């Protein structure tokens, strides 16, 4: 009898035991709960408070005052969005079923490219499209022009070998990543492996390792390593502007470390922190960077990599069919 009682008690006690073990989910539509949750997640994991000189506690006080129980989802979204935009980071976003917020760094500088001008006056109609690369000879065959408008993550060795072979006998290459908002970082290394004939230390990446604003892991050192059939180690001009962001900025940062690469154009948009992803207590999703990137010398270019030669597209020139940024690059090569 005692055994039966023991067994019944044991079985019944365990039916709800997981609730005792587990922490409660935070499932709430209350604006205050959602606000506190998002602010805390950022506080513990965002990687650029110190660099951007943002007093996150003061931001809390400012936007907390705008939170009240009866506010609509629309109003709450605007408060959360405005709070995150204090960080001025295009890698930060919050998405609801009715709206997506984002800080657009492209608007902080001029659009430094007019593709129509390039097509009509430099490439013509018979240009090549190899994977994601649009390219052809310019300047009477003396220079190779390669346009990459995004980093889709599918650049192949075959494509790079073809391109390098095609422009092998030119005096230089113009690699145009103006208004390239980024994508998959893997393409960076596939491309750079053809632009250097030796291993080069490009940058160091640090990831958040704790809730303190200064808590980061040991650096992950990133290198360009030569690979493929051949390398092009003559002059390579990288064209960039404020719309060159994320993987585009990583590529530009890498160009700073490679001796035969020169950056012409405008300061990039930055975006050298990899974003995470998460969900709020009401189901909305968010993201913000949790890594930071430094040059081998310890410089942080999160606000943008400055060009070696500053050059902004001039409307007078484009009206005349000239891309003065490409023209400046040609001077550098020829």
């Amino acid at each position, binding site marked *: 009898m005692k*055994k039966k009682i023991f*067994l019944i008690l*044991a*079985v019944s006690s*365990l039916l709800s*035991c*997981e609730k005792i*073990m*587990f*922490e409660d*989910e*935070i*499932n709430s*539509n209350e604006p205050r709960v959602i606000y506190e*949750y998002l602010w805390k997640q950022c506080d*513990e*994991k965002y990687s650029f408070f110190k660099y951007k000189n943002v007093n996150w506690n003061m931001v809390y006080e400012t936007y907390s005052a705008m939170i009240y129980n009866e506010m609509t*989802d629309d109003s709450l979204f605007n408060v959360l969005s405005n709070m995150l935009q204090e960080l001025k980071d295009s890698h930060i976003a919050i998405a*609801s*079923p009715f709206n997506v917020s984002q800080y657009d760094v492209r608007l902080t500088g001029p659009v430094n490219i007019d593709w129509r001008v390039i097509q009509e006056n430099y490439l013509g109609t018979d240009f090549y499209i190899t994977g994601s690369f649009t390219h052809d000879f310019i300047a009477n065959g003396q220079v190779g022009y390669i346009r990459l408008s995004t980093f889709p993550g599918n650049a192949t060795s075959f494509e790079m070998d073809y391109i390098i072979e095609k422009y092998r006998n030119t005096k230089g290459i113009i690699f145009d990543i103006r208004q390239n908002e980024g994508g998959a*970082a*893997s393409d960076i*290394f596939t491309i750079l492996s053809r632009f250097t004939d030796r291993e080069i230390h490009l940058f160091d*990446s*640090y*990831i*958040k*390792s*704790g*809730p303190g604003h200064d808590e980061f*892991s040991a650096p*992950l*050192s*990133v*290198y360009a*390593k030569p690979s493929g059939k051949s390398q092009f180690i003559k002059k390579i001009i990288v064209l960039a502007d404020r719309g060159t962001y994320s993987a585009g900025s*990583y590529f530009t940062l890498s160009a700073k470390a490679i001796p035969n690469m020169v950056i012409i154009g405008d300061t990039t948009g930055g975006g050298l922190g*990899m*974003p*995470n*992803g*998460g*969900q*709020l*207590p*009401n*189901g*909305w*999703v968010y*993201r913000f960077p*949790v*890594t930071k*990137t430094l040059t081998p010398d310890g410089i942080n270019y999160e606000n943008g990599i400055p060009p070696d030669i500053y050059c902004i597209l001039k409307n007078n020139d484009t009206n005349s069919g000239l891309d003065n940024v490409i023209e400046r690059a040609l001077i550098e090569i020829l």
Partner: protein
Amino acid sequence: MKYILLLLLIFSSPALIFGQEFIPTKKQERKLRPKYIEIGIGLDYSYFCDFATSPLIYKGMNLQYSLGYLSQSKEKESFFNIYYSSGTYNNIENEITLTSHTMKGGLTYHKLTRIKKISGNKWNFKIGGMINLTGNLRNNPSLGNAVSGLEFVNTIFTSLKAERYFERKETKPRRYCISYQLNLPLMNNTFRNGYAYVPNAIGNDPTLFKDYKVKYFSGCRLNSKLEFYSYLHNNNAIKISYIWDAYKTGGHFDKFQMANHFVQLSLLFKLNN
């Protein structure tokens, strides 16, 4: 006379020998112990919360498959089992449905011995240990770079089992057994995403398990099984199980917790006679 007595003794000795109870050696006992291959299929209702990416619970019900080897008698028992389940787990909040595509699997091994002091003809009690290795791979495309969550939880348990055998006396008698096994953790270890959750993956080197952390004696886990066996006339058996397995990782930040409820039907094919 003494020779007659001696002869009687010699002829009767086989009777003495054959009349004695046969006590098998350990090796013989192991050989005689019923052994089964077990093939099971069932429903896995589980829910989890990965506080590193979301404060919300994801729930799902999917099919689970298992394959096992059981060696079982009233005296001793050992069981090795592998199981697998995959499917979707959803969170639905305010017209937003986020889905995690999850693959789960694991293996368990337990070894039990009869507690003679408290066991009897009807009730049989066993004690021993169990090891359970579990892995989950979760993909939630809505979470950007935090799309993948991977955790391995391995636990060493101490196990207590109560069995009740009974027979149905008919023209063809049938044997049944109902048992309850409670597994209490001795050591729980976890391997899962690090603090930032996403890997520091900007480099060109492999990033699998980058920044993942191992933690020993971390978290908590409980496990129990309620099983009903029906032994068939051909010595095979059918088993219906309800298995409960709940665990959570430890540490100060961003825990992962999961509760699994498996209802399973298994066919046991006897290997020895």
